[in-house]
Every structure is written in C-alpha cells, then in structure tokens.
C-alpha cells in the first residue's frame, strides 16, 4: 500500500509539473497540450464510446494472437529441446525470426489476408511465437538432469516426466519468455495498427494515427496514456502473480 502511494504521488507530481509548464506557456498548446486538455479528450472519447471500442478491438487482437502464439510456441519449444534434428532446423529458424521485428510481416500479411483481423492476428502471432519457442527450449535444456533421474526412480515415465517435472522445472524461463513474447506482440500490433488502416475495426493504433492526421496532439498523448496503462495492467495482472509465486517458491527473491 505504501509503495502504491509512493507511485501515485510520483505520477501526480509529474502531471503537476507538466500542467504548470503548460500554464506558463513554455510551448505552444498545439505542440504540447496540457494534461487537462488530454483528460478532456479521454473523457469525451470515453463518453462517446469510441475509446472503449478501440480498447476492445486492440485487446481482442492482442490476446487472441498472444494465446495462439503460446499454444503453438510452447509445444514446439519442448519438441525442439527434445529432438536434435528439430533444434538444428526449426530451432535455427526460430532464432532467426525472433530477431526480425514482426512489423516486417505487415506487407505480406496485408497481401495474404487483406485489411482484416486475420492480418493483425498473423502479425501478433509472429511477434509472440518465436520468443516462446526459444524460451521453452532454453528452459528445458536448463533443467537439472538429476530431477529427471529422481523422477524416474519414483516411477515417472515419458509424458508424466514432461508434464510434471520438465515443464514445471523450466517455468522460470518460460514465464520470462512469455513476458518477452507479450512485449513483442504489443509493439508489433501497435506498429501495424498505426501503419495500416484495418477495415474490420479501429483499434487504439488507428486512433493515434487519426490524432496525428488531425494534428490533435491531445488525442495522440491520450492514446499513448491508454497504451501505457494497458501495458502496466497486463504486467500487474498477468505476469506479476506468476513471478511472485516463482520467486517465493524458488527463493529467487532473497538476492535483493
């Protein structure tokens, strides 16, 4: 609670300084709108329903693509760790494509799927899947072999070993890979939404793009604010509980 309060005071101060600078008229309000102006825009957009719709469209794309990425990436990563042949082939491909910003897929995605949800989904999946594949592979290859030996003497076999021993033992790696996958998916989706107009729905990226077209910087900053908010919420809701549990169980939080 105290830490939350500290964070709140910090942000309040930040906004205060910004508002004060705007009052003093350091910059033209066209270049830097005041926080009050941004809040006004957000309030209006929320009331009209535009903002809510955009958030929904974006989140739907992001979550769908992200979870497809995980459901494909996790088993592929495990298989790669298990079979050397797959490691030398698909593993190499994953390593290469992970380094490719997934927004590079946008031209192809548009050509293949048109200006549709599928194109967006494809870009998000491409952003997620390779990180998850590589994290799962690294995780499995870092499992202490003694765990598997111990499990075998206790009567654990094939599938049981994979699900009950190797998978949980590689969780620390897998969770950090999922986090990285999320970050990549989020960035690539924003780039794609700003970059192209998707006919099947206007996401947050499109709203930001529109703000630029209209020279409405309060809209641009307002949408940026929403993006930051969603990023923070995702971290706190999706990853923090996992990481806390991992630190608690593994005892990795005692270093600091």
């Amino acid at each position: 609670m105290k830490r939350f309060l500290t964070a709140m005071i910090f942000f309040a101060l930040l906004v205060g300084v910004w508002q004060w600078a705007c009052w003093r008229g350091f910059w033209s309000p066209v270049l830097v709108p005041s926080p009050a102006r941004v809040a006004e825009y957000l309030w209006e957009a929320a009331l009209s329903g535009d903002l809510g719709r955009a958030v929904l469209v974006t989140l739907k794309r992001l979550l769908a693509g992200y979870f497809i990425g995980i459901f494909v990436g996790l088993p592929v990563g495990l298989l790669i760790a298990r079979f050397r042949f797959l490691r030398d082939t698909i593993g190499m491909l994953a390593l290469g494509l992970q380094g490719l910003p997934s927004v590079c897929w946008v031209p192809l995605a548009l050509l293949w799927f048109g200006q549709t949800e599928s194109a967006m989904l494809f870009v998000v999946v491409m952003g997620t899947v390779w990180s998850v594949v590589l994290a799962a592979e690294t995780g499995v290859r870092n499992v202490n072999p003694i765990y598997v030996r111990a499990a075998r003497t206790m009567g654990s076999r094939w599938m049981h070993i994979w699900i009950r021993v190797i998978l949980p033992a590689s969780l620390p790696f897998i969770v950090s890979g999922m986090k990285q996958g999320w970050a990549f998916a989020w960035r690539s989706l924003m780039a794609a939404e700003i970059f192209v107009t998707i006919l099947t729905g206007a996401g947050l990226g499109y709203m930001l793009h529109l703000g630029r077209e209209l020279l409405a910087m309060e809209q641009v900053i307002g949408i940026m604010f929403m993006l930051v908010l969603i990023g923070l919420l995702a971290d706190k809701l999706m990853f923090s509980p996992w990481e806390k549990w991992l630190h608690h169980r593994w005892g990795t939080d005692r270093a600091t």
Partner: protein
Amino acid sequence: MTTTAPFAPAPSKLAIDRVSKSFTTSRGSVLALQEASLTVAEGEFVCLLGPSGCGKSTLLNLVAGLELPDTGSVTADGKIVREPGRERMMMFQESALFPWLDVLGNVLFPLKLKSGLSAKERNDTAHYYLKLVGLEKFMDANIHELSGGMKQRVALARALAPNPRVLLMDEPFAALDAMTREQLYGDLQRIWTQRHVTILFVTHNVREAVSLGDRVVLFSPHPGRIREEFRIELPRPRDINSVEVAAHATRITRALKGHLQEGATAE
C-alpha cells in the same frame, strides 16, 4: 583379512553377477566397472566404499535401473532389473527435491504415481514419513527455506514413502557439515531399525561406512573393481566417534591404501 563370513541365510534381495559397464567419454572408452559381483541379503545395510572413479556410483545406478550393464546381470528378488522402479528408491548427494513443490508436495510425488491409493491414504503416508524424519512442522515450507540437512531428511522421507524394498543412497550426506551429518547417521540407523529396508550406501568416507554398514564393500579404481568385503559386527546405534568404529576404520583404510598402491604399480 577378507571377511566373507557366513551370514544368516536370509533370502537374497539383490544379486549382482559379473557386471561390467563402460562409458564413452571424449578421451575414449572408460571401464567404470569390471566384473563386479555382490549379493545383498534382505534388509542388509551395505556400504560401497572407495575413492572417486571406482565404479561404486555406477553400480548404484545399475541397481536403480537408471543404467544397464554391458555384460552380466543385476537381479532384484530374482527379477532382472531393466528399468527404474519404485521398489528401488534412490537418494542423491544433492537432495534432488523439486523446487516447484513444497515439502509435502515433494513427499506426495512418488505416492501420486502409485496406483490404488486414495488421497487420504497418500496424505497420511506422507505425514507419517515427514514425522519419522522430524519435519512434520515444515510440511508447507518451500525447499529453499530448508537447510542442507533438512533437505536430505525430506529426500529420505520421499524415498521411504512409496514403501521401497531397497534404498539406494549415493553419498547422501557428503555435502553436509559434520554436526548435521552425525545427527543424520543417528536418524538413519533409527529409521532403518524401525523400517527394515535393504540399503546400498555409497560413500568415500571410511568411518561413515563403518558406523552405518553391516558390511563394507571396498572398491578400487581404474578400472572399477570390488576388492574386499568387511563385516562390521558392532552393536547399534553406533557412534562414529567411538573407539570400535575407529579400529575398524583403521583396518579398512590400511586395506584401501594397499589396493591403491597395488593399482598404481600395476599401471
């Protein structure tokens, strides 16, 4: 000197018959174990003693079924060992406890793999063994919160819980400090008297072997071979600091040095 004295003809639980095993390393093939033969009676506590590279851990892995012999055979209760099984549980130098489970979860792990147990029976069994090793208060603890000695106690409870007929211990106390180790010698002897199970205990510590084993089997390295056996007929519980243990230990150490020198001149 060799004391393969007649022993009460209890049914033989383990029979290792002329077993050889080699490993391929980057420097070529290494004969880890050469023509080793050993019989272990039901409920016997046998210590496998020798310097590193003498094949004692290899022998343990073969009995566990984690590895298979090149030649010869390992039989448990008359059946050839082809894979690991719950009737032969293993304890390692590192506790090998699973960090993603709490203490109770670790002890439950082998029980969940055993068919025909209800959830309540599993829980009761786990509780019983945690109590036996004196850790019932730490059921909900995380593994990293335990000391080295406590970890090995949990590992012991986990190994005993599925009711194995053989307990294979690979230098389980080697990484602990002397005080904790002595406590665990006491615990292990007490538990073994209560709950008779055949134990194969690998160690390179002569006094440890003498204070725990009914029999001490001496190995020598390059290639790994069984050289001699010593029967230790001392009343239990034994104290590792007692004169009797020291006397046996001196005798065995002398024999060990003899074999090592012999090996060195032969090479």
